[in-house]
C-alpha cells in the first residue's frame, strides 16, 4: 500500500518515507540540503574536461549525466560540469552511452 512506488521507479535508494512526504531523498538521507556540494568549497577539484576520472563520478551507469538533486552539486557547478562532460564526450574521453 504505502510501498507502491509507481512514480519513483528510477530511484532505488529512496526511503519509504519519501512517498508519503513527497520528498526526494537519495540514499535514505532525509534532508538533502545539509549535504554540501562536492565541487565547491576549499580543496575541491577543478572541473576540467580533461579529467574523465572526476567526471565519471557524475555520470550514471549508462553514461548519462546525473541530476543535481542526486549528486548535491550546486547549480553553478552543475552547469560547468555539463559543459565539461559534453566537451569530453566530443573528444571521446567519455562515451555518449554505454547501453548496447
Amino acid at each position, binding site marked *: 500500500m504505502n510501498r507502491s512506488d509507481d512514480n519513483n521507479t528510477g530511484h532505488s535508494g529512496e526511503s519509504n518515507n519519501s512517498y508519503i512526504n513527497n520528498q526526494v531523498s537519495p540514499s535514505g538521507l532525509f534532508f538533502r540540503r545539509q549535504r554540501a556540494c562536492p565541487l565547491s568549497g576549499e580543496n575541491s577539484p577543478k572541473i576540467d574536461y580533461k579529467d574523465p576520472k572526476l567526471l565519471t563520478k557524475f555520470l550514471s551507469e549508462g553514461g548519462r549525466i546525473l541530476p543535481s538533486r542526486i549528486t548535491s552539486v550546486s547549480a553553478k557547478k552543475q552547469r560547468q560540469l555539463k559543459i565539461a562532460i559534453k566537451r569530453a564526450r566530443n*573528444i571521446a574521453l567519455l562515451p555518449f552511452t554505454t547501453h548496447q
Partner: protein
Amino acid sequence: MAYYESTFIARQDMSTQDVQNLTDNYTKIIAENGGAVVKTEYWGLKTLAYIIKKNRKGHYVMIVSDAPYDAVKEMERRMKINEDILRHMTIKVDEVDLSPSPMMSNNSADYEIEGLGTKTVIEEIEG
C-alpha cells in the same frame, strides 16, 4: 592575445614520430602567424570511448597557445583538411595552468598509454 587549448586525435596507424611531426607542423603554423605555444602534451595512444571512423584507438595531442585568432583559425583549417586527424577541438580559456594536465598525471590501469612516454614542452609565455 588569447589563450587557446586545442586537442586533436590522430589515427592509430600513425607512428609516434609521425604524430610528433604533425604536432611540430601545427606549432610552426601558430608561431608563423604571431602566436606562441605555451605547452604541448602527448597523452599517448588511448582507447577511444566510441569508434570514430572505424578506429578504436587514437593518438591524443594537446596544444596550448597564446595566439591571435587568425593563427588558431589557420591551424584549425589545416586540421580539418588533414585526413590523419580524426577529431579536433579548440576552446578558448581564460587562464593557463602550466602544470601537466590531469591526463598526464594519471597512472591508473584504465589508461593504455602505449606511446613513447609523456612529452611536455613548456615554453615561456610571451608578453
